[in-house]
């Protein structure tokens, strides 16, 4: 086995001590020292599918928008309409460049009097500078709260029962709704959102007491046997969980040369923003409208592979002798027990049931196109 390692100055979240106490194996992720696993990626994956797993997602960027033109800046830069959002709602959206390529995929929260944007760790600085550029002439203040706050995702079918011990309001939240709660004398934002395909919440809280709050929650979830119902899960499981759920990951399914329509994310576009009263188009709208009319040249599909081998990002997809696409993400699905992959293939080459091949070195692996997502809870 060959490998390379390097070390440099890395950022740590408020849960660093918690991770090391729980035996985490730490890796670099977008400049942050993050837990990839505690014991086993597959065990942590199964924990989230059957019980309750706790992920540190504090590395994700949290940007607060205040000022008279905050809404206007977000309408200008997010692909999805935000003006019709009610207070207490959150929404998944893209941020695109002029060509319609994805700069980031984000979640926007609407509060009473301000907005919050949760962005990918790897894109935080790029998005900040993009937003500042677009904010020219507007009365808006952008505050980067990434370091003053922490964020955890608690995911799995057992989560609401555990949260219900602290709050009756949270289990009553609808998907993509949030509330503000006092936890240990501090304000936490709890949203019914996640990136695993399971029910659950994401919690944003002040960095200072975040570790104590999470320790309390985990301790309170102990059953009679002393084992906590909520166990930590790492980024490795987060990745295999989101793959099964068919959710895109920036840098894999999404990048600046990929448009949201090809990625199957048309639902996150409001292509009529400029037709609203006093509306203006969002950055990339014209280009995306053109793609919507003319059709995408490629599309994101799900693949199920024959055998046990895992494909990797960048492997070519063939149909007969012709190269028709490229793998963006892949894993051995812990839930389904078969290798799965997501890939971009040329339009017309990826109908459900189509047989394709993936090139692994000189070899070809058989695969068939299947419906996304690979896994849907309750099925």
């Amino acid at each position, binding site marked *: *086995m*060959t*490998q390379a*390692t390097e*070390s440099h100055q890395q950022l740590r979240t408020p849960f660093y001590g918690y991770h090391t106490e729980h035996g985490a*194996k730490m890796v670099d992720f977008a400049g942050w020292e993050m837990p*990839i*696993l505690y014991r*086993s*990626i*597959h065990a942590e994956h199964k924990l989230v599918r059957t019980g309750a797993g706790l992920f540190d997602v504090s590395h994700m960027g949290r940007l607060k928008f205040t000022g008279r033109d905050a809404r206007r800046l977000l309408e200008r830069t997010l692909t999805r309409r935000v003006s019709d959002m009610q207070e207490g709602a959150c929404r998944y959206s893209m941020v695109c460049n002029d060509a319609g390529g994805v700069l980031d995929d984000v979640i926007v929260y609407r509060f009473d009097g301000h907005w919050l944007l949760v962005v990918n760790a790897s894109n935080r600085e790029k998005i900040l500078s993009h937003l500042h550029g677009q904010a020219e002439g507007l009365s808006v203040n952008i505050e980067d709260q990434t370091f003053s706050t922490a964020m955890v995702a608690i995911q799995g079918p057992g989560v609401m029962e555990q949260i219900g011990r602290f709050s009756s309001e949270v289990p009553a939240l609808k998907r993509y709704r949030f509330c503000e709660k006092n936890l240990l004398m501090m304000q936490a934002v709890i949203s019914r959102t996640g990136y695993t395909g399971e029910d659950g919440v994401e919690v944003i809280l002040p960095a200072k007491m975040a570790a104590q709050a999470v320790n309390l929650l985990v301790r309170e979830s102990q059953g009679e046997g002393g084992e906590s119902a909520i166990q930590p899960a790492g980024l*490795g499981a987060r*990745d*295999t969980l989101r793959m099964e759920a068919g959710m895109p990951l920036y840098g894999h399914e999404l990048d600046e040369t990929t448009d949201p329509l090809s990625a199957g994310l048309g639902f996150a576009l409001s292509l009529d923003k400029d037709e609203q009263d006093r509306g203006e188009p969002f950055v990339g709208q014209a280009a995306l409208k053109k793609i919507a009319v003319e059709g995408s040249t490629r599309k994101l599909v799900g693949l199920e592979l024959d055998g*046990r*081998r*895992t494909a*990797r990002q960048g492997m070519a997809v063939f149909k007969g002798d012709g190269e028709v696409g490229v793998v963006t993400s892949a*894993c*051995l699905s812990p839930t389904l027990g078969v*290798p799965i992959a997501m890939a971009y293939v040329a339009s017309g080459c990826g109908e459900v049931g189509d047989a394709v091949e993936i090139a692994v070195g000189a070899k070809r692996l058989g695969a068939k196109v299947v419906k996304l997502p690979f896994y849907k809870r309750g099925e």
Partner: protein
Amino acid sequence: MPAPTDRRYIQTHEWHKPDAGQIVIGLSKFAVDELTDITYIDLVKTEGPIKAGEVFGEIESVKATSEMYCGVDGVISSINTEVIENPAIINQDPYERGWLIKVRPSDPAQLEMLMSAADYDREIAASR
């Protein structure tokens, strides 16, 4: 955890343990932990002669695919079919049940040329 001293190691993390005239080969715990959950083993060479420095198989995990190398010349005498069926055994027990192949060495003294456990531990400490 220090590497077991009853065997020798090569830089690519394969351990080589003498056992009744044969050499058993597997992956060190350090390597297995780096790979994370192992999902697939492909032993490309299942029998016949093999040389030091040759690839005897590929190993896949949730994270990566890597080649595995033999450290001695000889003839492959057996392979561990149990780990092919259930690769997670390598994660659970890399030094015993998780062995990969056995080689009948053409020159048993060749084993002594490989790294000792102490040298191997120093090597991985330096790589961190």
